[in-house]
């Protein structure tokens, strides 16, 4: 693999990029184009990846000193590991952002507007004078604009000019649920954030309020996501199980003090949140294909069992495997 390709792979942070692509797939699904291999793996992939590489480059350039403390052994921080110079990284960020912009405006004006807004958010988030990443609660509510709203809209606007009938409420629910998930990210970075005066929610208010906010967002968000489904449906029961696992994880996290243990618990919560997204995408896809309620219910139960088992497996391993599971990108 060439050095440039390796650098792109490092900056695209594959685990995070995969989640962004899931939100883009949900955006496509909201317009009735669930299971749309094209454009999901063509234009949508290029736009989302280009925007995200631009975001990670700007963030790495701005946070180099903090990352040297928080992420000394991370695989996806080329400035810390010496895999790239600041000039090389800046060049990559400009090319990636330019590519996303060009493809976005070529596909549709609405898409171009979304990508342009996303690139402006990248600058405002990481660089002075605004540097929104250091502003505690504000950061928490802004980050999902890039991680959830942008890929969702890129997916939806790549095939149409509006969201589907439930698109708005679905997007709001995903946004809130993601806040619940991303609020926990700061546990990983708390040491460096505190040293460099980055006033995150966790640094400013401590563990209990952060966990409480996370739990509230997951409860309200996942309820909103299911706004279109009957409360007596199998899908609702599966989502309740997912939310129960996430809340259990947050409860255990609130009582954990060892950083590596906290990281392992957060990985378990992330796993169950991915299960929510995938189950939802499956539901939309089966609905679009006209599956019967019985068949859909069977699939929901199968996925529910799979993701709850994955969560349980990660939680059981957390104590013995805590150190090994922390491989932040």
């Amino acid at each position, binding site marked *: 693999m060439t050095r440039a390709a390796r650098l792109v792979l490092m900056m695209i942070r594959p*685990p995070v990029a995969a989640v962004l692509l899931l939100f883009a797939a949900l955006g496509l699904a909201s317009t009735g184009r669930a299971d749309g291999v094209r454009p999901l793996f063509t234009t949508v992939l290029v736009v989302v990846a280009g925007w995200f590489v631009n975001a990670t480059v700007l963030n790495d350039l701005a946070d180099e000193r903090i990352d040297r403390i928080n992420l000394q052994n991370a695989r996806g921080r080329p400035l810390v590991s010496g895999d790239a110079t600041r000039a090389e990284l800046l060049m990559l960020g400009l090319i990636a952002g330019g590519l996303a912009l060009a493809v976005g405006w070529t596909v549709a004006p609405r898409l171009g507007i979304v990508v342009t807004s996303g690139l402006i958010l990248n600058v405002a988030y990481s660089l002075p004078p605004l540097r929104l990443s250091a502003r505690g609660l504000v950061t928490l509510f802004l980050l999902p604009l890039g991680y959830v709203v942008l890929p969702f809209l890129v997916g939806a606007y790549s095939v149409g000019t509006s969201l589907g009938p439930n698109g708005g409420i679905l997007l709001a629910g995903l946004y809130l649920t993601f806040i619940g998930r991303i609020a926990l990210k700061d546990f990983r970075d708390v040491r460096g954030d505190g040293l460099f005066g980055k006033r995150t929610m966790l640094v400013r208010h401590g563990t209990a309020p952060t966990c409480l906010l996370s739990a509230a967002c997951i409860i309200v968000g996942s309820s909103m996501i299911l706004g279109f489904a009957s409360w007596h449906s199998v899908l609702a029961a599966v989502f309740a199980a997912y939310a129960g696992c996430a809340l259990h994880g947050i409860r255990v996290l609130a009582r954990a003090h060892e950083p590596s243990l906290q990281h392992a618990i957060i990985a378990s919560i992330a796993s169950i949140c991915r299960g929510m997204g995938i189950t939802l995408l499956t539901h939309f896809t089966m609905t679009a294909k006209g599956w019967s309620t019985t068949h859909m219910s069977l699939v929901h139960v199968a996925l529910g069992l799979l993701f709850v088992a994955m969560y349980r497996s990660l939680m059981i391993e957390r104590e013995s495997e805590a150190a090994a599971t922390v*491989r932040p990108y």
Partner: protein
Amino acid sequence: MSDGRSRQRGVLATIGVVVAWLMAIAGLVVVAFFILMAIALNNYGSNK
């Protein structure tokens, strides 16, 4: 990782791959991709 836990993770990954394969056969190709991704991330252990 103990043998028991390693085996449990392996069994879960196998079940997940079978579920993804069935989804792909049923025409849910994108869903199958994301299930495989979730299994990979589960075994990879990312905290993001």
